[in-house]
């Protein structure tokens, strides 16, 4: 068996890394998610990570089909439960790069609890959320990030709940790399994803990825008119308070880019069982067999 055994984040001779899957995406023509899958491909290729050293884990929803459209290892799990599968997989073999993908319903609705706990653990995962502010696969109900007042099939008179603020939540939960991209700017987005992959610790890249079928409010044009780049605005990515302040901006100007980054020990760094390398490669069974039973005397 030739299994990844060490985080292969070092630069080597340039590889021709092919991530294209033979499976064609089944998203609607014009869906924002095309830009996201292209950005993920570009990010891993730019880092020269071979496909067999990447696991992409997703939940359920339009965007969660993404692992099928890449040629890496993939796990397409249950609605809202991508994160714990990814955590288990990463802890079992932290020689692999683990990317978690999904939508706003999957991550900020049904799976929100898992996301927050993964962030505070600072596991070295890269979480790419395709946020279209709507439930697409179930044909257009309000999502946790739908705008106040937005009319959807489940809220014909308008949403009456304050939307979740993923960036502020991630900052509060202890994520150590917090970014927002826009699928209408795939070059910028792939840089943010690559940054997340290079970052040691939990990286969130929340992506405005418009649903062209069910969300007629948060369209490509809507975002194009509003987004600006934090790196062009003199934002200090080491300042948590300023990052919180930027996270509150969601009006005529909406920030994208890196909000916050900090170095903190990862869960993998602190977990004693991983000191000897990936669990997958450690010996299994009981050592010191004679003495083990003595405690039961």
């Amino acid at each position, binding site marked *: 068996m030739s299994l990844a*055994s060490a985080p292969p984040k070092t630069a080597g001779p340039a590889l021709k890394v092919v991530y294209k899957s033979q499976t064609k995406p089944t998203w609607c023509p014009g869906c924002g998610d095309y830009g996201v899958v292209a950005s993920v491909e570009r990010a891993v290729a730019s880092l020269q990570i071979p496909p067999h050293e990447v696991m992409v884990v997703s939940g359920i929803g339009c965007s969660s089909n993404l692992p099928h459209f890449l040629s890496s290892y993939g796990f*397409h799990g249950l609605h809202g439960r991508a994160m*714990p599968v990814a955590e288990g997989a990463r802890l*079992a073999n932290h020689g692999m790069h683990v990317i978690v993908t999904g939508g706003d319903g999957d991550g900020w609705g049904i799976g929100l609890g898992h996301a927050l706990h993964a962030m505070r653990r600072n596991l070295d995962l890269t979480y790419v959320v395709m946020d279209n502010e709507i439930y697409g696969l179930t044909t257009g109900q309000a999502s946790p990030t739908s705008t106040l007042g937005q009319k959807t099939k489940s809220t014909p008179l308008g949403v009456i709940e304050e939307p979740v603020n993923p960036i502020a939540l991630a900052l509060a939960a202890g994520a150590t790399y917090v970014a927002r991209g826009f699928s209408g700017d795939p070059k910028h987005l792939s840089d943010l994803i690559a940054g997340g992959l290079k970052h040691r610790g939990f990286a969130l890249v929340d992506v405005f990825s418009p649903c062209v079928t069910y969300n007629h409010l948060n369209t490509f044009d809507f975002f194009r008119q509003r987004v600006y780049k934090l790196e062009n605005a003199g934002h200090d990515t080491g300042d948590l308070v300023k990052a919180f302040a930027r996270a509150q901006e969601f009006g005529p100007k909406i920030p994208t880019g890196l909000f916050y980054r900090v170095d903190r020990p990862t869960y993998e760094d602190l977990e004693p069982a991983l000191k000897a390398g990936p669990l997958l490669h450690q010996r299994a069974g*009981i050592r010191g067999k004679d003495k083990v039973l003595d405690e039961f005397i």
Partner: protein
Amino acid sequence: MKDISLRAGGAAGDGIASVGEVFCRLFSRNGFYVFGHNGYQSVIRGGHVWFQARAGHDRVWSQGDGCDILYALDRATVEVHARALREGGVIVYDPEKFQVPSELVPAGTKAFPVPTLEFARKFSPQAILQNAAGMGACAALAGVPLATLDQVLTDQFRKKKDILEQNLGASKLGYEHAQREMGAIGRALPMKGGASKLLLSGNQAIALGAASAGLKFLAQYPMTPATSIMHWLADHAVDFDILVKQAEDELAAINMAIGASYAGVRAMTATSGGGFSLMVEALGLAGMTETPLVVVEAQRSGPSTGLPTKTEQGDLNMMLGASQGEFPRVILAPGSASAAFRATRRSFELAEEFQTPVLLATDLFLSEDLHSVDREELPLDYDPPSLFQVPEPTDGSNGYKRYLLTPSGVSPRAIPGQKGLNFVAGSDEHDESGHLISDVNAGIPMFIELRKKMMEKRMRKLQGIVQATAPPKLEGPAKAEVTLVGWGSTALAVRDAMRLLEERGIAVNYLNVEQPYPLHTEPIARMLKEAKRPVLVEQNFSGQLGRLIRAETGIDLPVKLLKYDGEPLYPWEIVGKVLEVSGRVAS
């Protein structure tokens, strides 16, 4: 059969469980077989808790019936438990705390005052030290040498020299007082000698079995009575290189275990019925993605929160039907601590060989109570085999099929990280390569046929599992007046009852169903057809195993002993039922 039982009772916080464990070790250190039952409540302080330690020269499988020495820390203990005293029994109490009115003392038993607090005060102002004096008195009454108690206490307080000295002092005074004023009771058994028995809970046996089977990853959320599996493995994680992850909830716990298993390590989660309810969707995920998984389901009294500290076997129906759709699963239900050790190891083998979830069903009684076993019953000399066939790494051009259609239904399993074998494990229906067929292909004739084939591939594993596993055994004599039928921990009280019946010349045997699913239908049907008077014994309201047996074999078991009051089965309840169905006593 000859046995002796010591019972301690008081309020939560009085140290009853510690006293009970010491009572157990007084005997197991002298080569006796022991059973320790902890009767506790869902409170941390107060209420009423009790512990029974039962010992015998021969194997004692359960807490038995009645007790001989009752160490009462409060009057409530006397009120609740004095009636359980057998002829010649003694109530040990401290008159400084409360009085025992004569009407509470059953005929043929005695109340024996021991100034435990006074003895304790000679060494420490801490009232808890009275238990040392109390244990000393009880040890003398039970005919156990003081040296054994000293040794047990020395081991317990090895790291606390001051406290050890106080305990040794107080226990000696209690011991000498009882020896002087009362002496050993009539049921005291001669000391046996021989190797110490091991004393462990069912959960410890499971944790040990898992570690020896090569467990590398445990994800769990605390829930009685499964929690102590996590405690033991967390304590030994460094010794065995196991990663123990306390998850944020049971949804996360099972999904983490699935993720770890997908990545190639042996993984497990453990919970009780409530947590298992949350895990149900992911159980099907393991079935669909053909990911090996071991789930311990330690049952407790339901429904809902139920009686969190009381036992029941009410979750078989749920385990059989958990998760939407159909997929192969295995349910193992061991009937002793050493069987739990073996079944845990077997769970990992089956999960890995058949790439499907295995449920290890226990209950509070088996999981938490203390069982004594011989060392040989826990063979640790085991190299976890790799039971899955790993395909050769390729350049990706040979078209690796993770879900290849095979006669056995089991496909070669690649591990993420292997070059050229990339695949996606999907919760959607998928083709042999793992590509989903649920969206643009669903309902297209070719894929209708493929869906059918994938379903049949997975379900074929069940036949293999039946062939790979041993059919249940009939315990006891081949010919019997009554055949008891049960699963899981029921075996414990049944074995004690069978011995009591044997002493009365009544031959009874037991069909011990330790693998409720997939059921070994033919041998079970044959044994039941040959049984003279089958009696179903289960710890639930509706006879869930009986229903399964009827569904699978067409054989109805109309005579039932069903218990669902939260308390463990007592041997006398089974004896009574057998006497009734064999016409010896009127029903």
